[in-house]
């Protein structure tokens, strides 16, 4: 079995603040094989963006502490020299961000921004870089690329700006693309176009993608594997089929149940996950989801409040919950699925 493209082991990211140490990521582990797409889902504050910034080493060392292992093609990026990381950024590992308007420099044209990355990593001259910029703009579906290459970001629409960001990210043919909520700032029709674009580019460039989102629909369309994050930890991991069709963690049940239905009675109230995410400074000793969980009573004793559940089993469809596997399957089939109106065979 070939080595995975990216292998994260027990990643921890801590920020020191005036109020205490924030454990933004508290032991995250996953593998990403070449050419596959991993969706990371979670609420705001679950640690999804923080972990992706940690992969590229973009956290300023003054306030943050990153520990664990991030193996990219066998090389550990945690604690790597800045020089090493810089050679990877934009070239082997690229990142696109949520808001393309504020994420692009307003002072340089789109063409200049693409060319800048290209020239940095390939040493090409201006003409070659500009040609590459036009080529990339055409690939991401921007009409009249030879004209638009000299436009500034504020002259582009939201969807086109995001396409331009993708062009910048892919211009050096990276092996891994980290997309941090790439469609959140866009409206739904544009969102669909961007996802289509990512799918096309994925097959053309054979890029591995980490897709961070809070939108289950995006995960369903794009991802091969899914990681559900909560309070800085992974609470469920599996293929997209496994996690979306037969979820095994109360948090995942809550996420799926809260999705509004297209059919049925409009007056049925939405079912959110009750409660609020925990403080990342004072995490409880047991399961971090326990205060919001409706099923902790079904676990014998007080394991849920005293013992932190591990992500089990080691491979395959795993969840971090003290409920037994049979309990999880039963609860989902008998209680969650009918109530949430989730149809279709598992």
């Amino acid at each position: 079995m070939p080595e995975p493209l990216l292998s994260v082991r027990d990643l921890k990211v801590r920020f020191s603040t005036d109020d205490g140490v924030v454990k933004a990521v508290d032991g995250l582990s996953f593998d990403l094989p070449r050419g596959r797409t991993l969706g990371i889902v979670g609420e705001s504050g679950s640690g999804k963006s923080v972990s992706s910034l940690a992969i590229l080493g973009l956290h300023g060392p003054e306030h943050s502490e990153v520990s664990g292992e991030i193996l990219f093609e066998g090389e550990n990026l945690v604690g790597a020299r800045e020089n090493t990381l810089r050679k990877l950024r934009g070239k082997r590992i690229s990142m696109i961000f949520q808001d393309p308007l504020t994420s692009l420099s307003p002072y340089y044209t789109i063409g200049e921004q693409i060319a800048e990355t290209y020239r940095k990593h390939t040493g090409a001259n201006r003409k070659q870089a500009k040609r590459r910029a036009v080529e990339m703009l055409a690939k991401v579906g921007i009409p009249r690329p030879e004209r638009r290459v000299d436009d500034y970001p504020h002259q582009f629409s939201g969807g086109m700006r995001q396409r331009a960001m993708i062009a910048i990210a892919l211009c050096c043919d990276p092996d891994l693309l980290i997309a941090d909520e790439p469609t959140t700032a866009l409206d739904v029709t544009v969102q669909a176009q961007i996802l289509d674009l990512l799918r096309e580019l994925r097959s053309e460039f054979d890029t591995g993608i980490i897709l961070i989102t809070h939108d289950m629909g995006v995960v369903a369309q794009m991802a091969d594997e899914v990681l559900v994050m909560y309070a800085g930890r992974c609470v469920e991991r599996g293929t997209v089929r496994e996690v979306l069709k037969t979820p095994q963690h109360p948090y995942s049940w809550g996420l799926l149940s809260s999705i509004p239905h297209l059919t049925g009675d409009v007056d049925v109230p939405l079912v959110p996950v009750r409660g609020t995410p925990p403080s990342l400074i004072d995490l409880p000793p047991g399961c971090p989801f326990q205060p919001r969980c409706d099923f902790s009573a079904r676990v014998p004793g007080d394991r849920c409040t005293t013992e932190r559940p591990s992500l089990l089993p080691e491979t395959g469809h795993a969840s971090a919950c003290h409920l037994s596997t049979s309990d999880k399957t039963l609860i989902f089939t008998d209680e969650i699925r009918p109530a949430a109106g989730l149809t279709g065979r598992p």
Partner: protein
Amino acid sequence: MLAFLVRRLLGAAVILLIISAVTFLLFFAVPGNEVAALSCGKSCTPPVVAEIRADLGLDHPVWQQYLTYLGGIFAGRAIGDNACHAPCLGYSFVNKQPVWDTVVGRLPVTVSLAIGATVLFLVFGVGLGMLAALRKGKLADKVSMVFALLGGSMQIYVLAPFFLYIFVYSSDLLPRPTYVSFFDSPVDWVKGLLLPWVCLAIIFIALYARLTRSSMVDVLNEDYIRTVRAKGLTTSQVYVKHAFRGAMSPVVTILGLDIASLFAGAIITEQSFGLVGVGQLAVNSVLASDLPMMMGVVLLAATAVVIANIVVDVVYAAIDPRIKVA
């Protein structure tokens, strides 16, 4: 851009017109400014006063006086027996010379003072600010800001004698501050003005250092800086190519206004160092109630500020492509 410039220049003309009208009214039409009496000074007798009144047209209605004054600026006019060539800002009550000639004669000193001080405070002020921003929270940052605070708390009339004592009178390191034309001897030009430049610059450095620092810190928190880092650029490329450009907008605004006020005359500096510039002219003309001279200096200052504003707007548009100069 051309349309913008034309519009702004027209606007500037209107503003200057208004300023000249207001100033004119303040000086010549406010009762208590017995113009004629002021003009003739000590040798005042009724016939002399009457003659002055006729020369200056003080018996005419105010609006007519103003129009004559304006006309004089564009086409020159006759005041009494003397021809006052354009632009005619009147004759000084004190030295009986055309105001324009006197002011223009003092300009090189003030302009030299302004240029030198500006170069110094820009280089060191912005430099210090950048250093503080890049080493935010560390010793270099704190030390820079303390220096800046000290500098900003200084007063020129305190620094000037102090510097003069150390560098000129007790040590001969520098000559007494004096103006030597750049075209006569660049070296002496620098030596003669170095002390006033440094004194003036110290005060401004404080402002520019703090401004640059906070502006840089703001820009460094922007999303696009994170994107630029994620593209693999080196730290200096991030700072110089991207962060600096964004941080300069506020600095440019303040710079425009500061240069304008420096061109209008660094009054206290000139007095403290005995430099014969427009600032000193302003002070003396106020003390002597030399109305035409005061008006001339005010108009000069207003023009400097108006033009500086236009230049700042143009530079803005050059820095930030989002700003349409339409």
